[in-house]
């Protein structure tokens, strides 16, 4: 063989070209296929899901604090165990482990994930952090954790009615939680990110929605005063075997609610204790016929129009007054009383006589402008507006009974608020559950002189000859009014069931606090407002004034012991 022999073999040119053409064809085929696959949505999605994820960030719901920043409601993170039934693949053993960790029945878990069309189910909500961690470690495909928040109320039942409740999805259901839901609520954030092989987020692609933390809410409550009010009320309800009770503490100058409590109550951290009875915020949503605590308003307007002054003498003998076919009664025949004594001794006949001499419209305007018959606008769901009928439909007897608090109904908060007339020199202050940072503007209802004169008369009620010696507070001058009313049940007055109340304020020289106490059906023997409600007032007021460092306006040991004047006031309306 010579080296030349190989080179002599010549292949025809078309063969190489054919091969080249074949290769090119194959190459273009691949390019075409690649280009075609680019447009395939399914593959696009699968590809992206290898690195791109949508991450949810949850923020906590806003805190609720009292006026001094003490926490009343706070959200803490908990984990919920969720599953995606479409993706879930768990071995028998894993299922058993899950069941143990979640303290659930294995069949229950299987039932929850049985619907393969659903992409999301909760296996168990709000599990303990340790259990959640163990579940995460098991890394069962299709089972994952979701961070959620649980609401805690560290003060337990103390402020339960004001604060209200949230549901399992952290939305407000009752009370402040519901009223200020928009402000308190947090917003879930969503963003698309790129993850690397280790699952770490390496790049933010886009923010789909920004997360927003709920704003904190500062209430007007003072947790110290709230505690005093709640514990004082609780003891009184127990001691007097009352069916229910409410207490409202207002700042006498700004109308802020410093304390508000009702019994029965529930523990908001234990939802199973809640029922229809104990969930009611009675002081705000329930109304009652206030009884004698309303007398100052009728008398004040009579003074305002110049019909009487504190020293005007009114004949209340013989202790009864016939109006039409009905009779208004005092417990005793008191003979001639001055207007001041009518308030001090709480005479129905005297008040009715004064009220009957007034034009109906004048009395109606006074009551209406004092906030009766319209909601106090405190911003609480379901707030009562009470009943004040238009004066054109009044009969004389109704005008008479209304002057001592019958045939008219109000919530305890409305009553307490109306007393701002006497603490601010005639202004009706707006009430508020939120802390006010600037002085509030009220509406002038009666003149300063009338308000002061009425205040002096109300002070007499706690002085010898008055109905409420037990409302006295050591070191301070106290003004107030008792009320004991037969309860209205199914349209008639129950003979042996009472609503006992006391509304008062101190120090009388420069009022700081208004406290209104109401006990429903005290049944341990005592039922006069001066005997069951006034001591609560005294106890709470003593503690609260000390807490606020209010200077004394009377010498210490100013308490005068004397028997309470037999109340002339247990009265009933005339139906």
């Amino acid at each position, binding site marked *: 063989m010579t080296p030349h022999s190989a080179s002599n073999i010549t292949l025809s040119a078309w063969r190489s070209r054919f091969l080249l053409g074949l290769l090119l064809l194959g190459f273009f085929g691949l390019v075409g296929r690649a280009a075609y696959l680019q447009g395939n949505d399914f593959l696009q999605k699968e590809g992206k899901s290898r690195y791109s994820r949508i991450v949810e960030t949850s923020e*906590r719901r806003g*805190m609720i604090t009292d006026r001094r920043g*003490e*926490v*009343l409601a*706070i*959200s*803490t*993170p908990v984990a919920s165990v969720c599953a995606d039934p479409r993706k879930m693949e768990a071995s028998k053993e894993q299922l058993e482990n899950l069941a143990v960790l979640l303290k659930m029945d294995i069949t229950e878990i299987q039932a929850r994930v049985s619907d393969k069309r659903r992409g999301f189910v909760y296996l168990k909500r709000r599990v303990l952090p340790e259990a959640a961690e163990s579940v995460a470690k098991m890394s069962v495909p299709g089972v994952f954790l979701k961070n959620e928040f649980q609401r*805690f109320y*560290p*003060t*337990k039942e*103390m402020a339960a009615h004001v604060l209200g409740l949230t549901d399992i999805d952290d939305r407000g259901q009752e009370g402040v939680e519901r009223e200020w839901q928009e402000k308190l609520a947090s917003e879930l954030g969503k963003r698309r990110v790129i993850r*690397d092989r280790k699952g*770490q*987020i*390496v*790049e*933010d692609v886009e923010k789909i929605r920004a997360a927003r933390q709920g704003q904190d809410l500062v209430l007007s409550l003072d*947790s*110290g005063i709230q*505690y005093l009010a709640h*514990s004082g009320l609780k003891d009184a309800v127990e001691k007097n075997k009352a069916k229910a009770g409410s207490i409202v503490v207002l700042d006498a100058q700004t109308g802020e609610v410093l304390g508000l409590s009702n019994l029965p109550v529930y523990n908001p951290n234990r939802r199973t204790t809640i029922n229809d009875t104990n969930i009611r915020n009675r002081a705000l949503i329930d109304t009652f016929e206030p009884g004698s605590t309303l007398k100052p308003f009728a008398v004040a307007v009579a003074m305002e129009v110049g019909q009487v002054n504190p020293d005007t003498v009114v004949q209340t003998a013989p202790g009864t007054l016939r109006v039409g076919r009905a009779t208004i009664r005092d417990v005793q025949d008191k003979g001639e009383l001055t207007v001041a004594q009518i308030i001090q001794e709480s005479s129905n006949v005297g008040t009715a006589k004064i009220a009957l001499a007034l034009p109906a419209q004048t009395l109606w305007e006074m009551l209406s402008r004092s906030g009766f018959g319209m909601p106090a606008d405190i911003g609480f769901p379901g707030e009562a507006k009470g009943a004040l009928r238009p004066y054109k439909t009044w009969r004389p007897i109704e005008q008479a009974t209304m002057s001592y608090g019958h045939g008219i109904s109000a919530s305890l908060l409305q009553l307490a608020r109306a007393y701002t007339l006497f603490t601010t020199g005639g202004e009706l202050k707006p009430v508020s559950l939120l802390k006010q940072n600037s002085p509030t503007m009220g509406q002038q209802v009666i003149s300063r002189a009338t308000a002061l004169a009425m205040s002096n008369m109300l002070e007499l009620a706690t002085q010898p000859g008055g109905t409420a010696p037990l409302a006295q*507070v*050591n*070191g*301070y001058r106290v003004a107030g009014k008792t009320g004991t009313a037969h309860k209205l049940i199914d349209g008639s007055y129950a003979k042996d069931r009472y609503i006992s109340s006391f509304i008062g304020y101190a120090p009388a*020289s*420069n009022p*700081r606090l208004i406290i209104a106490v109401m006990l429903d059906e005290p049944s341990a023997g005592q039922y006069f407002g001066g005997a069951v409600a006034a001591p609560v007032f005294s106890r709470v007021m*003593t*503690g609260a004034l*000390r807490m606020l*460092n*209010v*200077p*004394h*306006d*009377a*010498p*210490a*040991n100013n308490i005068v012991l004397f028997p309470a004047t037999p109340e002339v006031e247990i009265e009933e309306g005339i139906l």
Partner: protein
Amino acid sequence: MAKLNIVLVLILIASALSVVTSQHKARSLFVALENEQETARQLEVKWGKLQLEQSTLAMHGRIEQIARVKLNMKVPTASRVQIVTLNHPADGSDSESVRKP
């Protein structure tokens, strides 16, 4: 001409590599940022728990109970309290007496 091409190729390679490194740096910095944010979140969670704990421990009822029972304390009666007013001479019944600052 060939020389210029070589230089351009070298520059191209250098810039390509620097793109890779800077991307890598950006990513690791981002991971660090994410970690810090996670820490911040966890600290906030902890803060919330501590707040809850504090308010539970500082409940007025609990404090009163401890003060009364354990420490045997009493609320002073008004007769044992002396209130000092600033600027005003002691004048208990004065209706204009100032509020304590």
